[in-house]
């Protein structure tokens, strides 16, 4: 069992995750600019910084008789949950804490958003933000179980819940190659956890921004940053689980990890080009399509593990 990692990793993780989140926000800004017919100049890449400055300068806002305590717990909690979710994620072999149950820990941290996003919606005492919070739970009931089973496949093949062991087990072939369905269901789950792209009805424009309908100023900045951090944490965790962590020719391990994380994150950000999915459709797809598919995948992995002996 690897010994606990040195403390400097605690300082590196927020920098790496923050950088990935900023990259995701910039890429999203540029894709929107290109879709609107503008050229992808440096100003478009710097859009998130300008937006952050704007939100910091603006006055914060609350609704009357709103539950400010619960809303603040919801907003700040998402940032902390995203950071804690990346605890077992190794950057080229070194993680903040390579827990013996890294996969279960990541699953536990990402499910915290069930409580946190709903609290943000409830805390606004506003019809649109309340509807947004309940939409998040309706979606979560559809993608959460398939995501949990997708998270079970790599540990099954690596005989351990420790992320370091899962990376070792991918010496010859990456898990993404021989369990593609688990990888796909995992990515759908991550897009759902960060309510991004086709799964963004909890914060969609049709209900005036959903859970963000009453957020302004620093509250809005911390909430949207938390959402990007959670998307980055999910994309980053896909690398050790399915893409062989830091393994790759020529470049050092930590650089390979970073490149793969950025690539997965770019694909997830690109998903915003698609239209939304209604909660009712997602519910039947989740239970009647994703769940059997990922169970089949786990069965196949189990049989392969048995044959390999």
């Amino acid at each position: 069992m690897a010994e606990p990692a040195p403390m400097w990793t605690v300082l590196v993780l927020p920098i790496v995750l923050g950088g990935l989140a900023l990259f995701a926000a910039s890429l999203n800004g540029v894709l929107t600019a290109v879709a609107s017919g503008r050229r992808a100049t440096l100003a478009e890449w710097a859009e998130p910084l300008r937006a952050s400055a704007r939100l910091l300068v603006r006055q914060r806002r609350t609704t009357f008789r709103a539950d400010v305590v619960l809303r603040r717990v919801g907003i700040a909690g998402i940032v902390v949950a995203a950071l804690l979710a990346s605890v077992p994620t190794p950057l080229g072999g070194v993680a903040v804490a390579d827990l013996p149950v890294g996969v279960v820990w990541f699953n536990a941290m990402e499910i915290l958003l069930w409580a946190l996003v709903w609290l943000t919606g409830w805390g606004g005492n506003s019809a649109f933000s309340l509807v947004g919070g309940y939409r998040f739970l309706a979606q979560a009931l559809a993608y959460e179980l398939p995501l949990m089973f997708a998270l079970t496949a790599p540990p099954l093949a690596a005989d351990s819940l420790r992320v370091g062991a899962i990376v070792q087990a991918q010496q010859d072939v990456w898990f993404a190659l021989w369990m593609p369905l688990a990888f796909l269901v995992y990515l759908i789950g991550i897009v759902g956890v960060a309510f991004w792209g086709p799964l963004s009805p909890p914060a969609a424009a049709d209900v005036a921004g959903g859970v963000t309908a009453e957020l302004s100023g620093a509250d809005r900045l911390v909430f949207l940053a938390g959402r990007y951090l959670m998307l980055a944490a999910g994309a980053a965790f896909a690398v050790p689980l399915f893409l062989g962590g830091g393994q790759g020719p020529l470049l050092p391990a930590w650089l390979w990890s970073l490149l793969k994380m950025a690539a997965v994150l770019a694909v997830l950000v690109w998903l915003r080009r698609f239209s939304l999915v209604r909660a009712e459709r997602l519910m039947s797809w989740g239970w009647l399509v994703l769940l059997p598919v990922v169970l089949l995948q786990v069965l196949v992995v189990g049989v392969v593990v048995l044959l390999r002996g």
Partner: protein
Amino acid sequence: MWEVIAFWVLAVLAVASGIAVFRVDSMARATFLLLASFLFVAGEMLVLELHYLGALTVLMMTAEMAIMAVFMIMFMMNPAGLEPMEMVHNKRGALVISVAVFVALTAAALVVPWPERAAPHPSDATHQLGEAIMRDKMLVMMVVGVGLFATMVAATLLATARGRYGEHAAPSRPEPSPHAHAHHHHAGGDR
């Protein structure tokens, strides 16, 4: 050293949030105080190096308390506690009983000579658990599986209004609820 401090801090917080659950007015706060109590207990498990059980408690309890919050908000009179009301009966009697139980249990805990640690700890508690589930606890898991299936069927039967065979088997076009045009002062509009 860390362990003892962590234990005491988590223990006090767990009991405090457990008691606070029944003292707050807002149902949302009550539910998430209960979740906080569970998270502190999960912290206690991590202090005892039971990594799997600690993470599992956070995983399962967060989902359950989020669902609990949905039902609490649906069924409680004023969910946000904006108009505090007393929804209790014989509060004093309950207090006396629970304090008596606490004293009795604590006395038992301190008096009875519990068998101290007999054997060294397994290196990987999760592995030990997994081994047990697959071997001598397999029958229990099967019974639990059938129990869960029975729960799904029973809960669905109780909860759904329209059974598959009842008179409104097919969900017909929803009939309009009796709304007079000037509909906002209900006759029986109890708060």
